[in-house]
């Protein structure tokens, strides 16, 4: 090892010596590692990486969302560490080991959505609302959000919606059986509850199985003593598409600050349900989102449009958490 090395940067099992006044980004790119970058001054976040070992410098985490910082994400272009670091690209599959899990139970929540309960064979350090990647086989995995809350639920809970001709969702609905072992990776994503501002108002909008992360996030927030008002708008076309309504109504009875607004966009809207699309109803009820924390999950187009609307309605960018349930485009 060269005497001038300030620290060792480890990436995908290769070691790189960090020179004096050299950023982690320069060190890696000089070593031939392809890291996307743009501004090289810690503002654009294009170069985002994650420290899987060691602690990134404070300066390299400036401006990152709390949820990213808590997971040791950092900006290598402005990182000049004194200590060794092991780093990975955010979507670097090798950064996460495969974890086997046993299917504990499968039960339909409605005609399309399956509640999947998994017992992970290794301790999975996750937050409610993050997602795991579940693998049908080695090259075919899909993301599913975690509706369970660590310390509250024994197992991992997923809500999987069956898509027409969907490969992995079809496999989960038709072929998976209790007792079977599956492989997963994760967790990932930054759509989760961060304690700290317990009085902040929260708005959550989900369509279809987009309720999965929200159900976890809400129960997580309430169990951590969130006191601010929490509004959940769950949208579907018809009554059939809603689920966990009884559980959510019960939660509402227990917590005065929790409000559940089931929304139906179809023509048949019985009493007790809001009529219209979930995000339209949400903005009509709560037009000013200044200082609000927002969570948006489900249909990608709903998430995209609503993110912008929430921002224009006054929500700060850093207070908007979203997971678009993007489905991979068929070839």
């Amino acid at each position, binding site marked *: 090892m060269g005497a001038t090395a300030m620290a060792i940067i480890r990436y995908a099992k290769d070691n790189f010596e960090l020179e004096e006044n050299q950023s982690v980004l320069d060190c890696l790119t000089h070593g031939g590692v392809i890291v996307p970058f743009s*501004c090289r001054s810690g503002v654009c976040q*294009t170069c985002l990486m994650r420290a899987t070992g060691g602690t990134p410098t404070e300066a390299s985490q400036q401006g990152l969302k709390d949820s990213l910082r808590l997971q040791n994400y950092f900006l290598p272009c402005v990182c000049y560490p004194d200590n060794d670091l092991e780093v990975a690209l955010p979507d670097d599959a090798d950064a996460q080991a495969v974890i086997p899990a046993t299917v504990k139970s499968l039960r339909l929540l409605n005609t399309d959505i399956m509640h999947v309960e998994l017992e992970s064979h290794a301790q999975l350090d996750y937050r409610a609302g993050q997602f795991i990647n579940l693998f049908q086989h080695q090259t075919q995995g899909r993301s599913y959000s975690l509706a369970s809350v660590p310390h509250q639920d024994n197992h991992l809970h997923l809500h999987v919606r069956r898509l027409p001709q969907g490969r992995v969702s079809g496999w989960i609905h038709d072929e998976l059986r209790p007792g079977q072992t599956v492989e997963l990776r994760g967790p990932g994503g930054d759509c989760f509850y961060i304690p700290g501002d317990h009085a902040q108002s929260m708005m959550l909008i989900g369509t279809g199985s987009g309720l999965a992360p929200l159900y976890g996030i809400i129960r997580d927030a309430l169990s951590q003593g969130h006191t601010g008002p929490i509004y959940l708008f769950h949208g579907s076309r018809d009554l059939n598409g809603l689920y966990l309504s009884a559980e959510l109504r019960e939660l509402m009875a227990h917590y005065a600050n929790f409000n559940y607004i089931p929304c139906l966009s179809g023509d048949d809207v019985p009493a007790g349900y809001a009529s219209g699309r979930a995000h339209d109803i949400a903005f009509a009820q709560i037009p000013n989102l200044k200082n609000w924390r927002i969570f948006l999950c489900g249909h990608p187009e709903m998430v995209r449009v609503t993110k912008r609307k929430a*921002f224009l309605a006054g929500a700060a*960018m850093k207070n908007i958490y979203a997971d678009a349930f993007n489905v991979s485009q068929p070839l």
Partner: protein
Amino acid sequence: MSQQESLYEQIGGEAAVNAAVDIFYRKVLSDERINAFFDDVDMEKQAAKQKAFLTMAFGGPHNYTGLDMRQGHAHLVARGLNDSHVDAVIEDLGATLRELGVKEELIAQVAAIAESTRDDVLSR
């Protein structure tokens, strides 16, 4: 004059950029003259790029070259980006700084920095 604070410091440095980014971006997205250019870009990434833009316009530290500005906006020029759009951006920038209580003389200096990139941004 070397003791004098830089423009970036006078405006308030990174804290000012952080305060300005949401206000500025909200203005840009609401501005019918230019928001079409920002339609199909990921909001999170876009906001981070707005920060880069503001840092640069405030005279702060950055590594962008004229060539970067050409390459970064070439796809927009191909979509019709012209002087009127640059005017709109500079106007929204001024309105943002006014909202934050920045002095007019500093706003003029910021506008001048943005102005100096006009030809590169428009690939001329």
